[in-house]
Every structure is written in structure tokens, then in C-alpha cells.
């Protein structure tokens, strides 16, 4: 009895699963997802994205949709993951987060991604700050990514250390100290030299982040707007490099390992006093402080000022690859996650700054203080820092130049193994090896 019933059940189950396979696992046939037509969507993000609660909310609102999320530790590994899967021609999630730094590479194969215009991108175009939406559009006018956040840069500083060094600690006074709207890198390094002289300590964590900020600020970075390499013979860039080199060689760099900081130790032990802070960096610092047992008492704060004027570093996009089996549902999810209402929630969860105007306005108005950063009104600060940001053209090797060419070169300065000339020469050699003659 028992045995034959079991067999009946098994037979039924196999028939049912066959039918399921025959129907293409549901959802693939273009019908909207519902309780009768369940769809499982995969999403890959990286770093601090703050989407967990939003996934649950979306699942509640859309019966039949389940979201399988993967979060990769950082942008560089997410890049490798995405490139590997693009090269293999399979394995990409239905929704993939793409970082601004490697968007240039993705643009080279933009035809591997769904044109979101087919799913109503034009209708919501005006949600975003214009340059963000343009970044996600390829030269043929296909929209391949909805912007999530942007990375306007402010300056983080440590109140405790500033106080010890006899510097002002109020964030507005600090902004004035650096020169307010007229803040320059020269002032930044001079203040650093003074601080180093008074305390014997380093001013910033390591040179690479400062360098990224300087380059991101230029009208044209590693590439010209026409997509030509723009490093060798670029005098403006070389002048900035010399500025950084002289500061670093004067002992202003703590020679920390980026995105490691001794598991956050460097943020609590007073190793350095200022830090370049694109909006998403607040989330990164939060994670580092948690890992090292720090908190609001660690003394970090953020000032509405940035040397050299407005600068944007990073920010991400959500894309739907052509290989997705559920492009309709995936595009819908991407649009929903990047809609102003959700961006506000994402910003609260991940400490980053939204790319849609409405969400920005809402955050400024809500003025939720960031507890970890001395209750700083981060919405207003980053809204102000976003003013005047121009989108820089990112070429196909932008992130390689940042991480494999200039990061090792400025490391020579951090360790004191090279002079400004030597480090610059090393950068040019590496550029020739890895990009020009690649």
C-alpha cells in the first residue's frame, strides 16, 4: 500500500516537472509574472548596495517573483565576475550592477545588453540627473543601464584628530579652512604639511584615492571626450601628479592598503585625519568602523568642501543582459529599484547618494542626520557637492588604468621608493605595457 502510493506520487511529480520543463520554466514566454507563472530573478550587486529590504518589498508587491541576490565584495571583483561571464556567453544574472569605472568596457559590447528603451526608459528619463542618464546610453542611443547612485565627493575629517592638532572641528569651519568654494589641492596639501609637522602623523590614508579624486575632477580624465588616451604629455595631469607626489613624499600618506585599512583599524587608531569621500564611501567607512569596533566616538565627520571643486567618483548602473531569460521582468525590477522612492530607501540603507532628482530633493528635505558622522546632514552636503559635476568620458580601460597603472605608480610614492619623476615614468611604462601595446 505504502509503496504503491509512493510510486503514484513519484509518477505524478515527474509528469508535473516534465510539464514545467516543457513550459519553459514559466515566465520566459513573455507573460507577466504572477502566482501562477512564477519567475525567479537573479541580481548581482557589489559593495554596499543596501537592497536587501527592497528585494523583500518587491517580492511582496509582485506575487510570483522571487529574487535570488548575490553581492560581491567590491567593484573590482564584480568586474572580473561580469567580464568572465560575458566572455563565456552565459551565467550573468538577470539584473547586473555595473560600476562607472568599467562601464567603458561594457559599452564596447553594449549589444550584449537589453535596450531599456524597449521597456519604457524614455518615459522615466527625466527622473535622473541628465549626465547620469547619458552615461548609461551607448553611442547608438540604446539605454543599457539605469543609474542607481552617484559619487559626488566631499571631504571626511576626523574631529578628534583635528582638535588635537589645534584645527577647527565644526564642519562649516573646516569647509572654510580648506577654502570653501575656492578650495584647492594646494591648500589641502599645505594643511597636511602643517598637520604632519605638528603631530608627526599622516594626513591621508594612501595616495591612490587622492589621485582618483584629482583625475575624476578633470574635464577629461584618462581619455579625451573622443575616446583617445590622454595621459602621456598631459601637462594638467602631470601638474596634479607632482602636487600629490610632493605631498606624499613629505610624509602625508599613511601608506595604508586601500579597501583594507587593517580591517578598519586605521579608521580608529588615528593613522590619518582626512579622507576623500564620494557619497558611497560613507557606507564603506561605516563597514570599516564596524569591523574595527569603532563608532560615532571614532570622531569622523564630513564637510561640504572638496579641493579643486566638484568631483564625482563612481556610482553604479543596473543593466539587463541579453542572455536573461526574463528580460521583461528584469527590466521592470531594474526600473523599480532605481525609481526615486526606492533610491531614497537605498540611500538610507547603504549611505550613498541617489542619482534621481526627486530622491535627492527628498533626502535633502528629510535631512536625516548621519549618526556615525557626527549627525551630519549628508543629504544636503552631497546635494551641494553634486552641483557642477560634469560627467567625464570613461574609456574601455579606465578602471585598468586606475587600478593597474596608476595605483602601482603612486604606491612607489607611498613607500618612498620613487621620486615624482620615477613614479610618473613607471605609470607611463605600465600604461604602454598594459593598455597601449596590450
Amino acid at each position, binding site marked *: 500500500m505504502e509503496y504503491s502510493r509512493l510510486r503514484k506520487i513519484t509518477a505524478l511529480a515527474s509528469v508535473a516537472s516534465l510539464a514545467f520543463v516543457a513550459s519553459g520554466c514559466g515566465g520566459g514566454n513573455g507573460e507577466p509574472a504572477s502566482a501562477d507563472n512564477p519567475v525567479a530573478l537573479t541580481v548581482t550587486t557589489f559593495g554596499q548596495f543596501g537592497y536587501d529590504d527592497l528585494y523583500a518589498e518587491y517580492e511582496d508587491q509582485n506575487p510570483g517573483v522571487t529574487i535570488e541576490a548575490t553581492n560581491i565584495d*567590491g567593484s*573590482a*571583483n564584480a568586474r*572580473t565576475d561580469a*567580464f*568572465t561571464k*560575458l*566572455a563565456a556567453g552565459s551565467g550573468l544574472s538577470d539584473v547586473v550592477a555595473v560600476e562607472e569605472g568599467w562601464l567603458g*568596457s561594457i559599452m*564596447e*559590447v553594449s549589444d*550584449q545588453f537589453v535596450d531599456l528603451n524597449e521597456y519604457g526608459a524614455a518615459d522615466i528619463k527625466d527622473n535622473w540627473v541628465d549626465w547620469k542618464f547619458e552615461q548609461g546610453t551607448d553611442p547608438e542611443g540604446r539605454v543599457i543601464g539605469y543609474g542607481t547612485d552617484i559619487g559626488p565627493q566631499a571631504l571626511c575629517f576626523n574631529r578628534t584628530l583635528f582638535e588635537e592638532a589645534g584645527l577647527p572641528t565644526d564642519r562649516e569651519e573646516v569647509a572654510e579652512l580648506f577654502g570653501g568654494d575656492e578650495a584647492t589641492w594646494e591648500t589641502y596639501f599645505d594643511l597636511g604639511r602643517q598637520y604632519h609637522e605638528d603631530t608627526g602623523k599622516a594626513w591621508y590614508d594612501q595616495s591612490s584615492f587622492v589621485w582618483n579624486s584629482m583625475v575624476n575632477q578633470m574635464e577629461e580624465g584618462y581619455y579625451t571626450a573622443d575616446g583617445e588616451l590622454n595621459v602621456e604629455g598631459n601637462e594638467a595631469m602631470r601638474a596634479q601628479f607632482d602636487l600629490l607626489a610632493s605631498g606624499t613624499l613629505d610624509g602625508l600618506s599613511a*601608506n*595604508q*592598503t*586601500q*579597501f*583594507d585599512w*587593517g*580591517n578598519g*583599524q*586605521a579608521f580608529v587608531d588615528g*593613522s590619518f585625519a582626512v579622507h576623500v569621500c564620494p557619497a558611497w564611501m560613507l557606507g564603506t567607512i561605516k563597514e570599516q568602523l564596524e569591523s574595527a569596533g569603532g563608532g560615532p566616538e571614532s570622531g569622523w565627520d564630513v564637510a561640504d568642501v572638496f579641493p579643486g571643486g566638484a568631483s564625482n567618483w563612481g556610482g553604479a548602473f543596473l543593466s539587463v543582459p541579453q542572455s536573461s531569460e526574463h528580460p521583461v521582468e528584469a527590466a521592470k525590477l531594474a526600473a523599480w529599484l532605481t525609481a526615486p522612492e526606492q533610491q531614497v530607501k537605498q540611500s538610507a540603507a547603504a549611505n550613498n547618494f541617489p542619482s534621481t532628482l526627486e530622491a535627492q530633493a527628498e533626502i535633502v528635505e528629510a535631512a536625516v542626520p548621519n549618526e556615525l558622522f557626527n549627525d551630519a546632514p549628508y543629504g544636503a552636503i552631497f546635494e551641494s557637492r553634486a552641483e557642477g559635476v560634469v560627467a567625464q568620458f570613461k574609456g574601455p580601460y579606465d578602471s*585598468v588604468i586606475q*587600478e*593597474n597603472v596608476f*595605483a*602601482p605608480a603612486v*604606491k*612607489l610614492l607611498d*613607500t618612498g621608493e620613487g621620486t615624482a619623476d620615477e613614479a610618473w615614468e613607471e605609470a607611463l611604462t605600465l600604461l604602454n*605595457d*598594459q*593598455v597601449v*601595446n*596590450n
Partner: protein
Amino acid sequence: MTTTLNRPAAGKAATKPAVTFRQRLSVFDLKVSPYLYIAPFFILFALVGLFPLGYTFFVSLFDWHLLRGQGEFVGLQNFQEVFQDRFFWNSLFNTMSIFLLSTIPQLVVAISIAAVLDQNLRARTFWRMSILLPYVVTPVAVAMIFANMFGEQYGLINNILASFGVDPIMWKNETLPSHIAIATMVNWRWTGYNALILLAAMQAVPRDIYESAAIDGAGPFRRFFSITLPSIRPTMIFVVITATIGGLQIFTEPRLFDPRTAGGTAKQFQTTVLYLWEMAFQRQNFGKAATIAWILFLIIVLFGVINWLISRRIATSGDDRGGNRRARRRKRPVAPAAVLPAVGAQPPAPSADTAGEPLAGPTTRSGR
């Protein structure tokens, strides 16, 4: 009419012995089955071994971008360019350096541990299992823990050094310290494993040889160097070969020692496989990556051949000596115990007593 016409044909069929299905099956079984039995290996090998090898070579002849795919045919230009790339030679140097720093200490320590475990210890299984423990831990976890310990500013090791007033060692920024750090990870993981393999070999050495040697007055060190080491030679060769292949393909440890870079900021510990990985997934040049893969393949083949030649030499010379010994024994069956192992191996003979070593015979016997 029709019947007469048909008859010869029918007669012909009748004269020829009918081959039954069963017979045909057994012929088939005899001729074809063996090939079918070995087919799975060859099919699998062709699929996951030979085809990728050939296809990699095909890719290496092209300008092949990771994302854009196949480009122009460039012939052997990729090989030429890789040989001119300073980072290729750098990676080769790093690989060899890490390989030597890991293999040599590893073998020395593994043999010593095995020799200790070969003694009559209390709770033997416990000791044997505990040296295997590091092998069970995943390499990723090992790399993360060691990368933390070898941190330059906050690492455990530099902290301890600092408390003795020693300057911190730049484990990640300087070449030799970084190689030592990575070799330490490899050693930590593989020493116990190799020790167990060597221990198994040691246990197969007949105990009476040791006894005879002891009676002849050989101390523990003499016994170890003159009996243990020569006896486990084939196993040693096996361990060396596997360590060589593993050492040349080292990837996880240097990759995770500094997860933000492909082998250090200035490629201080970029091994060849890591160089390959960087070429494919960061520099996005699949053609050159395939080239590196092929060069690495040829290097490993080269090492394999060298290993094979050396091991063949060692193995045959070992056999020769054994053969000579046997020949000598055959010639002089009642000779005094000139060669130690031979005495133990011989059946107890009264001649042993008369040969001037009164204790040898009886002790050997009572020892059994």
C-alpha cells in the same frame, strides 16, 4: 521452375555454418568491448583535456579580446610579445622562487615529521590525524588568515616583532618577504599531507632491517639516513613531482594574499598563473592569456621530463645496486654480513653464528 532456381541459393546457405546472434555478439565482445571499456577515459580526456589544449593554442594565434571576441590572425606574434614582456619573466622568477621556498623546507619538515610519527608513539592516530588538519581547511580560508597575520601595519607577526623592537617587515611590498609569506601558506597546508604519504612509505620498510642495523651498532641517525631514506625513494619522487606541478600552478595563495591586486602593487608576488589571469580578466587580452597558458604548459612538460629522467636514473641505479647485492649474495651464500639489509632478509642460517657475529642470528629470530 522457381523452386529449382531457388534451390542452389538455399543449399549455399545451408553449407555455410550459420552465425548466430550469440556468436556475433561474442566476436563483438572480443574485438570491440575492450575499446569500449577504455573509451570513457579517452572520450573524457579528449573533451576536457585535448580539446581545450588545442583550442587554447588556436586562441593564442589570434588577437582575441575578452569581451569583443576573436580578432585578427596574428600567428606567433603573441608568443613573441609575451617573451618580451618583463612581467612574464618577473612572474616566472616569482613562481620559481616561491616554488623553491615552499618545496624544499616542506620536504625536509615532512620527512622529519614522518620519521617521528614512525616511532612507537602513544595515541598514534591522534597525531597522524592532527598533522592532516591543515589540509582539510580550504585554501581560501588559509590565505585570508595568513594575509591577515602577515599584514604590514596591523598584522600579528609584525606586532610580535615590534614588541621585541624589530622593525616591521614589509610582507606585501618587498619581494622576498612576500615570497616567504606565501611559501609559508603553502607549507602549512601541504607539509602534513606529504608527511602522511612519506609515513606510509616508511611503514612499509621491513622492521627487521632496522633491528639488524641496530644490532650492528647503527645509531638512530645512521639508520634513518642509510635505511629509511633509500627505502622510501620512489615515494619521495612521487612527492617531489606532485609538489613541482602544484608549485608551478600556484594561484589561490598569491591571489588572495592581496585580493585588491593581481600579485602585489608592483607584482612582487605575481606568479605565472596569476599573470595569465590578469592578462585575461583585467587586461582583457585573451589571445595573450592563451599564449601564457601554452608556455606554462610547455614549462610544466619540461619539468615533468626532467623529473622523469632524474627519477628513472635514481630508480634504475637503485635497482642495479639491489641486483648486485642479490648477485653477490648468490655467489657467496655463507658470506659474513657484509651488507646489512641482506642479513635480515636471509633465512636464519646456522652459518650466521659461525660468521663471527654470535648475537646476530638468535636476536633476529627471537625478535620475530
